[in-house]
């Protein structure tokens, strides 16, 4: 089929312009309300649970999950569906294990919780390093992805695409802080859910609203194998390891955890997760329909011709079903998706730099409000410019593994220390720092010598570490090291403060 993909059509430019105008207007409005760190980092803690649920969904559902999973289902059938389930199952775990304690104990970052009763300087520096490493890896993957996508969608050059995404995102965060970021994420979530719903309804309308007929059409064209598990999950241990990274990685993603401080209390945090899980679950439930329909109507060969990775499956389906105007809308939604995620990441990276490293490690908690705001904005600028430069430096590189690596670092460096600090009286500074260092180092090194990088990217004949996903080893090691080192050392002051911490964890006494 003929496609206008890659040429800036009137509808694409109009929808794109509307989204940018609307979000910049909101940023202008938010900027006048952003006077203190409470507003800049946490939107004044006045976000409602429903709004936060949408914003969490907007923060989490990346272009990789919208375009990537639709493409994976289109090209590889049922295997894409297996992958989709993994992206949801972290949310219940987040609820059961850390959502409420996280909200009760912290102020702006997850490092607040880890450092609650431990020695500030070492724990802040270690937690911020784990957090920033996670955010940087995720940001590189998002920026490179965004450059490629915007280039494919609108036909502008890669460098301009990265610069454009970077500058708009930086405007949101720099001027509007968390208030603007929250609304950008809400708008993006609504647009994305609406766009995918319309696509699904248009697809099902062609099959008299009988999904069975869609699957029959897929099987008729590509054989029954398209609806059966194929080659994605072959080694059960590796599959479990990937599952662990996806599930517990969410519990260590700084930009997600940070959103919990935008609501009033632990009860609101709990409700946020319920809404978020509903929106995200609905999304992953219907996105395979989009993928299967793209394979049926557009065809696998046509999808591969535009992008071998399949990322253009959903936009091409949109054009087939709704013409150029609908393609323009879906392209603009994909653009908004990228913006919302990188804005969240930049704010999280900047907060770790300014709140954890500058205020608590360098200034030992003593900095005036004005000074904190200046540093927060400077850190945002540094992080945003770094994101743009990294996006350009990594042009043409295969960075898909970096998302996996970000999740591996998050579940190995950030999550074990966070959970142990909430649960265990004997957990101490030495245990926390060694757990974070072990988790971060091990996950990075094991990925480098895994089949993903050592063989696929560096072209060595055989891997030094057999698994593609290191989480099962690196996360376990981080827990073991954290426990063993804590048991081997004593920190009476940390143990003494645990009662006070429990009162705040479970009853919310003293929570801010």
């Amino acid at each position, binding site marked *: 089929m003929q496609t206008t993909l890659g040429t800036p059509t009137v509808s694409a430019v109009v929808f794109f312009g509307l989204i940018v105008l609307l979000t910049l207007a909101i940023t202008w409005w938010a900027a006048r309300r952003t006077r203190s760190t409470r507003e800049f980092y946490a939107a004044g803690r006045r976000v409602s649970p429903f709004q936060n649920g949408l914003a969490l969904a907007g923060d989490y559902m990346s272009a990789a999950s919208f375009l990537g999973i639709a493409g994976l289902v289109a090209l590889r059938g*049922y295997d894409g*569906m*297996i992958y*989709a*389930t*993994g992206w*949801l*199952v972290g*949310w*219940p*775990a987040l*609820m*059961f*294990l850390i959502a*409420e304690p996280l909200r009760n104990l912290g102020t702006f970052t997850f490092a607040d919780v880890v450092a609650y009763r431990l020695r500030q300087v070492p724990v802040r520096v270690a937690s911020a390093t784990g957090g920033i490493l996670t955010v940087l890896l995720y940001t590189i993957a998002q920026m490179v992805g965004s450059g490629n996508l915007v280039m494919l969608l609108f036909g502008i050059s890669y460098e301009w695409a990265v610069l454009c995404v970077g500058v708009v995102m930086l405007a949101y965060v720099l001027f509007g802080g968390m208030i603007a970021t929250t609304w950008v994420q809400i708008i993006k979530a609504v647009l994305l859910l609406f766009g995918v719903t319309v696509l699904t309804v248009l697809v099902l309308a062609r099959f008299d609203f009988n*999904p*069975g007929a869609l*699957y*029959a059409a*897929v*099987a*008729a064209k590509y054989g*029954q194998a398209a*609806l*059966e*598990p194929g080659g994605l*999950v*072959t*080694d*059960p241990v590796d*599959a*479990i390891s990937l*599952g662990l990274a996806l*599930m517990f990685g969410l519990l260590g993603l700084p930009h997600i955890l940070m959103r919990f401080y935008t609501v009033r209390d632990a*009860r609101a945090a*709990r*409700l946020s*997760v*319920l809404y978020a*899980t*509903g929106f995200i*679950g609905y999304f*992953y*439930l219907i996105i*395979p329909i989009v993928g299967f329909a793209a394979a049926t109507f557009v065809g696998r060969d046509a999808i591969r011709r535009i992008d071998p990775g399949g990322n253009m499956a959903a936009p091409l389906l949109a054009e087939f079903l709704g013409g150029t105007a609908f393609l323009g809308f879906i392209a603009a939604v994909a653009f908004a998706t990228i913006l919302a995620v990188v804005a969240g990441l930049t704010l999280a990276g900047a907060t770790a730099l300014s709140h954890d490293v500058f205020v608590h490690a360098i200034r030992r908690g003593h900095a005036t409000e004005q000074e904190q705001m200046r540093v927060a904005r400077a850190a945002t600028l540094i992080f945003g410019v770094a994101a743009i430069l990294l996006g350009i430096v990594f042009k043409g590189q295969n960075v898909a593994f970096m998302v996996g690596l970000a999740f591996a670092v998050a579940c190995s460096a950030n999550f074990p220390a966070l959970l142990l600090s909430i649960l265990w009286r004997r957990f101490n500074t030495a245990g926390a720092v060694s757990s974070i260092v072990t988790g971060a180092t091990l996950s990075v090194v094991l990925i480098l010598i895994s089949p993903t990088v050592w063989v696929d990217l560096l072209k060595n004949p055989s891997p030094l570490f057999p698994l593609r996903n290191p989480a099962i080893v690196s996360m376990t090691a981080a827990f073991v090291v954290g426990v063993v080192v804590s048991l081997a050392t004593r920190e009476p002051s940390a143990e003494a403060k645990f*009662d*006070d911490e*429990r*009162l705040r964890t*479970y*009853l*919310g*006494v003293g929570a801010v």
Partner: protein
Amino acid sequence: MDDSTRRVLESAEFRQLVARRWRVSALASACLFFLYYGYILLVGTNKAVLARRIGGAVTLGIPLGAAVIVGAWILTAAYVVWANRSYDAAVQRLRAHLDR
């Protein structure tokens, strides 16, 4: 730490609340693990089950994959119902005993 705080911390009700909170959370997590890792292990070890056709071209794997997502949401909702009703009420009672 004042007396009322110490009394609350040492009270049977507070200890039971914390124990119950982690029991519920462990039970919910166990259900989640069974649901998700059970599904992944099934995919990894016995693909034939998921490839079984259950009507037309539809394979058992399709409703099972959807069930993992729906089941995960139901678990989340069940936890919220428990926490809103039982946990929050206990927190209110305990906080009333505090002087501060």
